[in-house]
């Protein structure tokens, strides 16, 4: 028995009246874990029962501990009829399994019923005694820490970054089971909630196993999503970045190597040996000798369309239903990446780069879900890479098994990887994946930022050296280095406009840079940033099956193109030259596609100033037309000037080059890679450059173009006192004060006019988004001066004529006076003060040869053949590379563009293949938990080690248990990874909750708005309660992954599903005043933050 779970039910309060006669309730509680159930006594006739039960003890496998939620059900005892359920509480006990997280769960939980919402509260106490399990075949991964935060969590140091982990589990959706026809909605909802909870647990455990296998102890940037595929099943999938994290303790010397995870010790030995000579050949030998089996394909120069090298591999006999690309995660090849290579200094830069590159290629996917990095980690950023693929869900051969979906994602990841390569980059950072499902069509999307990472961080066991030869390796200053092009100037992946860096003058930079990551803190920025959104609606005909999929995939490139054009124009209009945090969402509905691109525009000092926008009319001579054009031109120029002032963009124009051409050479640099993964090596490319047109002008020749320009100008500026961005923090604001207001807002518009045009739709959609923003500004006006950060828009088309926009963001106050002073020397200060903690951020590349084992290559080929049916699925892939050097003159008339479109469409004929595989209707549930006999080694000492909470805390808990007067803990929530003015002293574990709410009395609950308003408030309340019960006082990196609303006002019914996640933390007010507040906010608090750590 590797674990003992102990639960005590203390009391209830505010229970609903269940017995009309007495206006009271006879409540009792059922506590269920796995298949074991305990009951408390009935506490008769009270709305505030005091059960004070004994300790209920569950003896369970740690595997179950990870998978299963604790289920607490409150019921009303009824002597004559069936007991009525009041509601339930699901408690995820995962945080208790990690010694560094919470030690006890204790507090008031809202009692939740899927029909009635919150009905009173219950006080529960949960503890876990965990025994050490040294069985190396174990299936559990207790102790692996999970973080939603997409940066190295404060108060930790990354000893090693191992890389990408992913997993996917599939099950039948209980809503689609036959039994659903006869059971109550409540039972059905609860089955669904429980299943997703179970699947999340299983998924997390499996990812944990992979991490352990890689030698890590944590997953950072953990992103879990679920896809409700309908008939074909329910998918829960997750990606993350495996790391070895060390807790920073106050006294720890940052430069010691003792932080190494034990598992990596052999690896570091391995890398020491080649370091003696540190020559490339040796390195090469290493590579071939040990990295071969797991990833034979890596070495091949793959085009984006080459068949994805499936390496599904079932390492353990057990996982029949797990996704298994995990073999790919094991290639910890023994390429020591030459610890001492750095000693050879400067001239070896290219060598190092190659090394890193090869090193990263060892891994199947050199992806990182992180969006913020320690200073110096990012060497160069190439640009945004993204891939989309349209799939038909009813064509899944074996819907119960994850293989097909695994293969889908595998393809997409391969695409991403090859695009990164095309940009001369070996890694992808800020990586994320998403889906959009409508009926049987599913769009899979992935995007990230191609980048070259510092080879210094790729090595292991040689951190000191890495730091010492800093100046050799890093000739470019950190404030502009990441802007320098990663690709070869003579062999550019696309035609780009290059200039010498405006900051260091030594290297080439593109004229525009798009990324999905947060602005590196050391970057030199001029002025402030702002939120830039491109919005687009495209009508499509209603269709079924392949026809529909074809239509959608035909539309996708145009949408991407137009979104891109809009982004560029709006960027220019704001006189900025870079986008950060770019997120493009394309959502599919029955009769339309919605595209929403959000990013934060910035003026990077290192990049050239953007030119203006010029308007040209096609027909000359018409005087009124000329006049019209002039007016528009004037308006645009005025807007640009106004924006410059608004965002304080006044770069020091010190160079002749800058002034040289306000309208630079307008060569075109954006292109589409379009490919079909089935067709072998064909790679069709679309050059988004608008032919030979050399004027970078907006041409007005029809009403559409006028509309476009108008829509450009309709974006209302943010009211004074407000700023907004979709990145963690606003570039240019460095003095946050402690005011924080997280909010979620949802709007659904019904399009009443059925015969809408694309233009009309665009207008409506744009207005919708703009009005939402305006509403936020108005509501939050009391917080001025403030900034809306991490504005996360999610669009959906829940029904034919509905557009749903959900936004989660945080408003943060800042000190206006400090904000206005220009932090001129900020980068240098940063560079100087960066602690060694931040610098020590090596990635694991050295493989311990022992773990590069097991998978004979024959097995791989076997699986490839196994997966071929899946590859024949009707599909159509579109991939787009947003190049960093997209030109200033994407502003062409739409007429001209449409010509391009046509030819493009011709060239890219869709390739669809029919699959005559019957969809299975009856499936088994696929969450299987096979048990293995595990050897258990536990000692008295280990028991003591795991003994629950110190006496002091439990006492204090008992004391506030009194019913009245115990004030509710204030729990702050934020989508950011930090709370301004505070420092995080402890991470208590991940919060990942899924709720369903349904009503059959929609009118009585205040209509859909009333229903959803209550539900969102309830979700917040439950998140806060769980955090408070873990002993925390804040949630960071909070996000609402899903908000799916279905309504039928005629039947007075509605149903809504919400999935939220975040990291529960304890944070304390920053008592010791930081001299530089910006440091405190951007994450430099790690070192200081540990003092108070418990």
């Amino acid at each position, binding site marked *: 028995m590797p674990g003992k779970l102990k639960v005590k039910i203390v009391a209830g309060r505010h229970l609903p009246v269940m017995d009309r006669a007495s206006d009271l309730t006879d409540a009792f509680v059922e506590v269920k874990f796995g298949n074991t159930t305990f009951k408390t006594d009935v506490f008769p006739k009270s709305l505030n029962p005091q059960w004070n039960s004994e300790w209920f003890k569950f003896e369970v496998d740690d595997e179950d501990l990870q998978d299963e939620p604790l289920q607490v059900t409150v019921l009303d005892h009824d002597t004559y009829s069936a007991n009525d359920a009041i509601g339930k509480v699901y408690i995820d006990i995962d945080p208790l399994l990690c010694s560094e997280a919470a030690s006890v769960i204790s507090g008031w939980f809202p009692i939740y019923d899927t029909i009635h919402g919150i009905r009173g509260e219950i006080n529960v106490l949960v503890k876990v005694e965990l025994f050490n399990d040294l069985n190396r075949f174990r299936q559990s991964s207790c102790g692996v820490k999970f973080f939603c935060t997409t940066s190295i969590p404060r108060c930790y140091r990354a000893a090693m970054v191992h890389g990408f982990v992913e997993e996917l589990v599939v099950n039948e959706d209980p809503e689609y089971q036959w039994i659903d026809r006869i059971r109550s909605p409540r039972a059905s909802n609860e089955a669904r909630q429980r299943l997703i909870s179970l699947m999340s647990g299983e998924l997390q455990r499996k990812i944990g196993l992979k991490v352990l296998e890689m030698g890590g102890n944590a997953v950072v940037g953990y992103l879990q999503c679920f896809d409700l595929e309908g008939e074909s099943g329910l998918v829960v999938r997750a990606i993350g970045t495996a790391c070895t994290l060390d807790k920073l303790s106050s006294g720890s010397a940052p430069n010691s190597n003792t932080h190494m995870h034990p598992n990596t010790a052999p690896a570091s030995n391995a890398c020491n040996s080649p370091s003696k000579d540190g020559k490339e050949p040796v390195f090469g030998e290493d590579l071939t000798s040990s990295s071969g089996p797991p990833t034979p394909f890596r070495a091949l120069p793959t085009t984006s369309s080459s068949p994805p090298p499936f390496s599904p591999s079932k390492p353990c006999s057990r996982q029949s239903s797990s996704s298994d690309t995990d073999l790919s995660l094991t290639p910890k090849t023994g390429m020591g990446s030459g610890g001492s290579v750095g000693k050879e200094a400067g001239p070896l830069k290219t060598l190092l780069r190659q090394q890193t590159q090869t090193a990263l290629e060892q891994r199947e996917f050199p992806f990182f879900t992180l969006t913020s990095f320690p200073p110096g980690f990012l060497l160069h950023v190439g640009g945004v890479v993204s891939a989309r693929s349209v799939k038909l869900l009813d064509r899944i051969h074996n819907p119960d098994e994850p293989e097909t979906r695994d293969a889908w994602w595998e393809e997409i990841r391969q695409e991403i990887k090859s695009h990164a390569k095309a940009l001369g980059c070996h890694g992808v950072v800020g990586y994320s994946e998403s889906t959009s499902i409508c009926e049987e069509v599913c769009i899979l999307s992935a995007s990230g930022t191609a980048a070259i990472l510092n080879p210094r961080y790729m090595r292991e066991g040689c951190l000191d050296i890495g730091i010492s030869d800093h100046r050799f390796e890093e000739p470019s200053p950190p404030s502009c280095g990441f802007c320098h092009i990663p690709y070869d100037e003579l062999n550019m992946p696309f035609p780009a406009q290059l200039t010498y860096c405006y900051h260091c003058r030594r290297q080439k930079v593109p004229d525009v840079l798009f990324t999905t990551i947060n602005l590196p803190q050391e970057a030199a920025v001029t002025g402030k940033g702002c939120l830039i959104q491109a919005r687009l609606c495209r009508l499509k005909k209603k269709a079924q099956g392949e026809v529909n999929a074809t239509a959608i995939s035909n539309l996708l490139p145009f949408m991407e193109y137009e979104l891109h054009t809009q982004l560029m124009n709006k960027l220019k209009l704001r006189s900025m030259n870079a986008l950060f945090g770019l997120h493009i969402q394309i959502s599919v509905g029955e009769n339309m596609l919605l595209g929403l691109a959000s990013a934060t525009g910035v003026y990077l000092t290192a990049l050239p100033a953007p030119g203006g926008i010029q308007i040209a009319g096609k027909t000359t001579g018409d005087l009124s037309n000329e006049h019209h054009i002039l007016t528009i031109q004037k308006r645009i120029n005025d807007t640009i000037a106004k924006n410059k002032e608004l965002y304080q963009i006044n770069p020091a124009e010190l160079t002749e080059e800058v002034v040289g051409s306000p309208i630079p050479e307008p060569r075109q640099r954006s292109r589409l890679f379009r490919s079909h993964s089935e067709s072998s090596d064909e790679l069709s490319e679309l050059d988004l450059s608008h032919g030979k047109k050399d004027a970078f002008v907006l041409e007005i020749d029809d009403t559409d173009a006028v509309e476009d320009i108008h829509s450009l100008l309709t974006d209302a500026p943010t009211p004074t006192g407000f700023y907004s961005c979709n990145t963690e923090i606003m570039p240019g604001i460095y003095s946050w004060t402690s005011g924080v207001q997280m909010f979620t807002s949802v709007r659904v518009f019904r399009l009443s006019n059925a015969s809408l045009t694309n233009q009309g739709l665009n207008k409506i959609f744009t207005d919708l988004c703009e009005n939402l923003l305006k509403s936020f500004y108005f*509501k939050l006006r009391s917080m001025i001066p403030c900034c809306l950060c991490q504005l996360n828009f999610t669009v959906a088309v829940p029904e034919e004529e509905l557009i749903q926009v959900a936004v989660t963001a945080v408003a943060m106050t800042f000190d206006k006076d400090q904000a206005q002073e220009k932090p001129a020397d900020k980068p240098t200060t940063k560079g100087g003060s960066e602690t060694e903690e931040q610098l020590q951020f090596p990635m694991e590349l050295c493989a311990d040869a022992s773990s590069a084992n097991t998978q004979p290559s024959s097995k791989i080929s076997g699986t490839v053949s196994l997966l071929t049916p899946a590859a024949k699925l009707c599909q159509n892939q579109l991939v787009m590379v947003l190049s960093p050097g997209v030109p200033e003159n994407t502003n062409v008339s739409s007429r001209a563009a449409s010509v391009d479109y046509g030819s493009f469409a011709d060239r890219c004929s869709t390739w669809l293949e029919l699959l005559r595989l019957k969809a299975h209707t009856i499936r088994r549930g696929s969450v299987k938990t096979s048990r293995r006999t595990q050897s258990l080694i536990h000692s008295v000492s280990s028991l003591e080690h795991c003994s629950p909470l110190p006496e002091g805390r439990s006492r204090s808990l008992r004391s506030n248990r009194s019913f009245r007067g115990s004030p509710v803990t204030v729990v702050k929530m934020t989508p950011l990874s930090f709370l301004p003015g505070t420092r995080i002293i402890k991470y208590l574990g991940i919060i990942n909750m899924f709720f369903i709410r349904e009503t059959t009395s929609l009118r009585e609950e205040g209509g859909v708005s*009333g229903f959803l308003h209550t539900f969102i408030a309830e979700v917040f309340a439950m998140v806060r309660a769980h955090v408070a019960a873990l002993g925390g006082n804040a949630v960071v990196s909070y996000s609402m992954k899903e908000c799916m609303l279905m309504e039928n006002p005629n039947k007075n019914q509605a149903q809504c599903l919400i999935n939220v996640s975040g990291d529960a933390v304890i944070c304390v007010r920053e008592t010791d005043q930081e001299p530089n507040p910006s440091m405190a906010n951007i994450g430099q608090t790690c070192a200081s933050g540990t003092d108070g750590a418990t």
Partner: protein
Amino acid sequence: MRDICSGSTQSDREHSSTVPEAVEQAEWQQSNAECLVLETGWDNTQNKMAVELDVFVGNTTIMDEEVYQLWLDGYTVNDAVKVRMEGGVMEECEASADVLLSDTMDQYRTFQMCERLLHSPSKLANQLLFQIPPNRQAMLIERYYAFDDAFVREVLGKKLSKGTKKDLDDIGAKTGVTLKSCRRQFDNFKRVFKVVEELKGPLVENIRHHFLLSDKLGRDYAAIVFFANHRFETGKRKLQYLTFQDFAFCAGQLISNWTVGAVDNMVEDMDVDLDKEFLQELKELKVLITDKDLLDQHKSLVCTALRGKTKAFNEMEANFKNLSRGLVNIAAKLTNTKDVRDFFIDLVEKFIEPCRSDRWTAADMRLYLTHYNNSAHILDTFKHQAVWDRYMVVIKSCIFKMYHD
């Protein structure tokens, strides 16, 4: 699939439909029915495209005090929007009418959801649904329980029954308070009354403790409860000149001097009822008017003290016997519930009106009553000094308060 949009009616399968709903919940839904009316209002203003749904939920619940007041005052969403527009909030924040409407709707919904909690304010502090800072909680409660003096003046002393509730629309029309607001205020009175009725101990403290109200508001509610309990007549034309604050002050005097709790905090009985023993003892005061000697003696003592100190001396001397009879008779009759109800009308008819017709000033009144009270102590045959004082301290302060135009 159990499709929400096209599936069969789900209530058929819903076992829980037989579960007795919480009483609160029924009330809650009732209040929510009004929300629907609001939503149609929204549709009217958005002709082109209907906003099907629009919500904004903050982790810390955002509440605008101005909108809260409008909601409390019973404005509809559209009227509230109009008022806000006139208030100039739009120019201030560069907002449009749509934005204002959306914000107002959101706030109204939030208030409606909170209303249930406000009915038992102690719940507001330890509920989990809304995260509201303590000072905001106090503001919400205080404002929710605040009332219009004009309205309460109409209801004061009336039975807090369904019958009275039916007349609220008339009262609303008369006082200019919206019916919605009238209902809220009336329900507040009733709720406080119900809770306090059963409780022992000091009335004001009980109210403040259970409803977390400020001292001032607690006292006002104590007065309302006290008046409702004794059904004091306040509606007669002769009493119309008195404000709620006049009555509240008098109620405070009665509570702190004439109830059981006034003499002994530890007794089982409640603050709400008058001390029966004391009322019995008041009959003994009759001797002051029935014993001719005593009456004359009393008069001469008072007149001696007053002579030369006031212009109204002649009138005082002439009316002494009448006035004294009036006050003592009121005291003697208080054992009758009916006469307790008429306490204020009697005070006005028997004492205040005669004085007013003789044009006494407030200072005259003060002078007269002080000497009237004190002189009784000098009467050697008068044995009921304690009862007399307990009676007169209230009468004096009530009359002082009530003696105005």
